[in-house]
């Protein structure tokens, strides 16, 4: 970590409760630029909720989240989400072609100043050819849709990519392809990635820093 600048992401004493039930509390950790962090923990421990707190989809009950020293709770949520982009478990495709899916986020106010990248190149980064631009996004396979969802997030040049169980609904073969993609994005593009998984074998294959938010509270693995 560079001692002159704050960590890319700093989480302090974070806590979330729903209907009086504490999902997690006192969660603190830092993430540096270019890290691959694998978030593990049993079902219901709040892994997905934690990711949603990081991009302001869910408001935590206590604690703070700082992005390069700036408290994200005082920033415009739409802008936070451009920097910390979340890709859900089941990829949601907007109506239209893959190219339309990639260009749609650029119509949002928070993204209007951004230059649109070469979509063919973005698709190649996730292992799809540029021919996919004209394909109907809703007719692609689950694995292809997940890659388009990742490409759609990458097109916005986020600082942190949040992947919520990205292989949960995929078969073993496609799962491995996506794991390789995640490792490659982190290694080749120095993309900071936080991946949620409950599969410890997958956590091992991704070979990132393991952060466990199990019943006994937050702890560092590996």
């Amino acid at each position, binding site marked *: 970590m560079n001692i002159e600048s704050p960590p890319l992401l700093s989480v302090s004493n974070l806590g979330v409760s729903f209907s009086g039930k504490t999902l997690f509390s006192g969660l603190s950790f830092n993430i540096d630029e270019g890290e691959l962090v694998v978030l593990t923990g049993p079902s219901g421990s709040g892994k997905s909720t934690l990711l949603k707190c990081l991009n302001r*989809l869910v408001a935590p009950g206590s604690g703070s989240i700082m992005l390069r020293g700036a408290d994200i709770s005082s920033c415009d949520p*739409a802008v936070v989400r451009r920097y910390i*982009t979340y*890709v859900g478990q089941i990829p*949601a495709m907007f109506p239209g072609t893959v190219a339309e899916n990639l260009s749609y*986020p650029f119509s949002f106010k928070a993204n209007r100043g951004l230059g649109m990248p070469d979509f063919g190149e973005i698709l190649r980064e996730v292992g799809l050819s540029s021919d996919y631009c004209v394909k109907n996004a809703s007719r692609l396979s689950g694995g292809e849709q997940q890659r388009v969802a990742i490409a*759609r997030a990458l097109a916005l040049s986020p600082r942190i990519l949040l992947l919520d169980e990205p292989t949960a609904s995929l078969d073993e073969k496609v799962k491995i392809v996506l794991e390789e993609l995640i490792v490659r994005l982190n290694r080749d593009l120095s993309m900071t990635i936080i991946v949620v998984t409950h599969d410890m074998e997958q956590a091992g294959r991704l070979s990132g820093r393991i952060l466990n938010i199990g019943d006994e509270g937050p702890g560092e693995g590996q």
Partner: protein
Amino acid sequence: MTGELYDPVAGLLNLGIAIVLVAVVIGLLWLKKLGLEKDLAVAVARAVVQLMAMVVIIAFIFETGNLVLVTAMLLFMMAFAARISAERAEKLENPFWVTFPSIAAGSGLIIVILVISGVIPMTAEYIIPLGSMAVGGTMIVCSLVLNRYFAELSSNRSLIEAAMCLGADNEEAILPHIRQSVRASLIPSVDRMKSLGIVILPGAMAGMLIGGVNPLWAAEYQLVIMFMIFSSEALSALIAVTLVKKNFDINRL
């Protein structure tokens, strides 16, 4: 009825025949186990009682010709319509405060414009029946738009969340679904206008023709009514979604 002497015996007989007809339909629904018979029986009873009570009040207002009473009557109709429409928006904490402004502003504004411009004469005999048509139309559209809005949001939760995760603010994320809700709510009104005169001879025009009014004048007035109702409905749908979208919270879907 053509304005000749009213015969109460013949009137009650006609009503009796119509009620027997509805009772037969309720019996059929009961036999087919559609589960609608109770609702329909209550609706029929309410229609008879409400309309008869309303006739007494309207006759009194017509008699006095007092415009304050006319306004109070229309406001009462709007509040009642808003209460019924609010049942379609149970997910809101205070649905009445979405439906009442939508119905009141949607129908009220158009009625005021038409009265001020002289299209509708400023008398109780015109304002109450025409106003009630506008209020009734906006109530249906308000119910449709709210019903569709909540259905759209809950069935498209993942798309809305995906848009928000890519930088959309709340309004941008739900905009396609708001458009779809408004479009769907206005389909019956648009279809009614498309088929006007060919499939549907609307109530007001039919009544005027039966009453012996010049067909051209009846048609002209019917168009005024139709456009007034459509404008009220469209305005009401737009106001309803504008008010309801302020309460949008992705975590409450």
